[in-house]
């Protein structure tokens, strides 16, 4: 039913794509995503998949090809990183506005300038409000599992939205890890066939996509429907996760709670740093410190009330953003958590740490210093500095 392989994150994603076997893939190579493109090109060349594979002239073209193909009724995928996603930006809200369930993998990489090919989350955080669902992954296994589930979530009748799945560039994309790969037939049965509602290729029922809708039209209602669909994705992703657990033995929630039941101090983190942080949690627990961790999986929709409920008994909470916020109220995840707490009427001291920009190393000692800060904050009841930087050169 499954095979254990020692593969990189990029190859894990390519393996998932091979089993899914989408109808159309439009891509452009960019470090550190390139290996996915190359591996998939190999599968096509060997005849292992019957995908229309288009190595386009730019990412803008790649995602536009996906939009056209998805509107035609095809199951469509792409993958990119950093500037590639930035160049796709114009088309991202077109895909979500047209309710096209394109599934994209983005290998997280910093946005220029200065030019940098290493990991942070500035690419996908810049696209967090484009109407796409966003699912983050700690390691290669999660990247693989999330990518397969994303097809079902995106195409679900209550959702019908494009979805991007992420993992950290190089740290995960290029590191060889243990990955359980499901048999192609099992994955194919799980994802099934895409049934598009209004495909352009249905010549008996002609339709127009993307037509003008100005004043007096239904634009606003359309947007409200999109927001509802994003919200629906919460339950759908949990339902899909239950089904996926049956074929894989691995079940995912909206986020992962690690030793949170009795935690006094918690940090909220995205992607691979969760692995480093869990090690610190374990060490602190041995010393009697009630440390816990929340790792975001589903970031759009944002599980606001669910996260607040998980934090409710904490004395202090740190939110880690691997992206510069460019505002003095902190990074995007910090903003979201603050708003969520305010909305739920929960007043826990919150503190933000910006870390790992452009691939800057994040060490266990950095995470330890965060927990140590949290103990001080809990003791004094004061957050001396709401926004802080970890590992910055002085």
């Amino acid at each position: 039913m499954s095979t254990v392989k020692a593969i990189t994150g990029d190859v894990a994603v390519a393996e998932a794509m091979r089993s899914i076997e989408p109808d159309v893939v439009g891509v452009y190579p960019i470090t550190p995503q390139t290996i996915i493109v190359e591996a998939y090109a190999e599968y096509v060349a060997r005849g292992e998949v019957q995908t229309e594979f288009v190595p386009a002239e730019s990412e803008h073209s790649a995602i536009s090809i996906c939009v056209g193909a998805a509107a035609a009724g095809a199951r469509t995928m792409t993958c990119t990183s950093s500037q590639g996603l930035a160049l796709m930006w114009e088309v991202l809200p077109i895909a979500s506005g047209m309710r096209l369930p394109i599934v994209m993998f983005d290998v997280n990489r910093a946005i220029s300038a200065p030019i940098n090919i290493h990991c942070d989350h500035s690419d996908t955080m810049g696209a967090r409000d484009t109407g796409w669902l966003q699912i983050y992954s700690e390691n290669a296994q999660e990247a693989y599992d999330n990518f397969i589930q994303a097809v079902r979530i995106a195409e679900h009748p209550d959702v019908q939205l494009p979805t991007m799945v992420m993992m950290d560039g190089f740290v995960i994309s290029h590191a060889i890890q243990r990955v359980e790969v499901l048999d192609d037939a099992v994955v194919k049965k799980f994802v099934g066939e895409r049934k598009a509602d209004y495909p352009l290729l249905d010549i008996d029922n002609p339709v127009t996509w993307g037509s003008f809708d100005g004043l007096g039209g239904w634009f606003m209602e359309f947007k409200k429907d999109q927001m509802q669909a994003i919200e629906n994705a919460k339950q759908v992703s949990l339902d899909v996760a239950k089904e996926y657990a049956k074929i894989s033995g691995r079940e995912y929630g909206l986020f992962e709670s690690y030793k949170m039941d009795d935690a006094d101090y918690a940090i909220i983190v995205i992607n691979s740093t969760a692995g480093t942080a869990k090690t610190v949690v374990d060490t602190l627990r041995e010393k009697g410190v009630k440390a816990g961790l929340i790792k975001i999986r589903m970031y759009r929709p944002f599980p606001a009330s669910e996260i607040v409920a998980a934090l409710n008994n904490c004395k202090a909470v740190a939110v880690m953003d691997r992206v510069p916020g460019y505002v003095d109220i902190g990074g995007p995840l910090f903003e979201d958590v603050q708003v969520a707490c305010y909305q739920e009427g929960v007043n826990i001291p919150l503190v933000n740490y910006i870390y790992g920009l452009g691939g800057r190393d994040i060490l266990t000692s950095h995470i330890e210093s965060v927990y140590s800060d949290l103990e001080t904050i809990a003791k004094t009841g004061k957050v001396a500095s709401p926004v802080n930087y970890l590992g910055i050169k002085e």
Partner: protein
Amino acid sequence: MIGKELGTNAPNTWCPGCGNFSILNAMKAVLAELSEGAPDLARTVLVAGIGCHGKIADYINVNSFYSIHGRATPAAEGIKIGDPGLRVICHSGDGDAYGEGLEHLIFAAKRNVDMTMIVHDNRVYGLTTGQYTPTSPLGFKGRSTPAGSIESPINPLALMLTSGATFVARGYSHGIENLKDIFRAAIAHPGFSFIDILQVCVTFFNQYEDYTARTYALENHDASDFDAAVKRAREWDYNSTDARIPLGVFYRHDAPVFEVNPADVGHKPAETRAELDKLLAQYR
């Protein structure tokens, strides 16, 4: 100043035997010549895009600007328009200039911005380790096209001629004197000078033998004759494996440049304003 003095301490990361070395050395030599008698290198700006070629900005000690992938051309245009007194030399690659940012190249040529555009055309994505590009031949087996590309290449020279470039040339990375001649002429040309350089990528698409056997210097060619230039540009379509490949300046034509004087095209804002005021005065 001699070419050597224009070097930097940045460690060179190109593969041994890379065609970029001769482009670098030719450019340094020509810049050194230009600095003689009139030390104006401070008024020279080197622009580079993303790809192996881009490193050239690290290796020449003049003002330089790294753009993002595909945007070397418009960044260079902006620099020139912002300060027309600058000498702008833009290095780009075939992925950068013909793929990701092709539209910019066409418009820079159409506008006739006075800049030198040097495309390091290795016909493969070298930095991302070997995928096909817009000038890779039909059937090219790269890492994104393991079964062979099913697309025919574009002919950048023919494209630039029809887009309005006023200087069109082709060089070859094996032959530094030939490159220096072209660079001198291109930099001296007032207007958009375009050079496609067959830059051999020894690692992912080594064409040295093939190019050396097939290239020849343009002779008895009238570079002011547009039709003749198009004909010579079409002698090789970047695909055929037996056609001869001409090198040198295909076309040169003087035309007004974009950034100097908008009044040349009849736009006289002060006079228009005066006329309008006179007209409005009748109704006051």
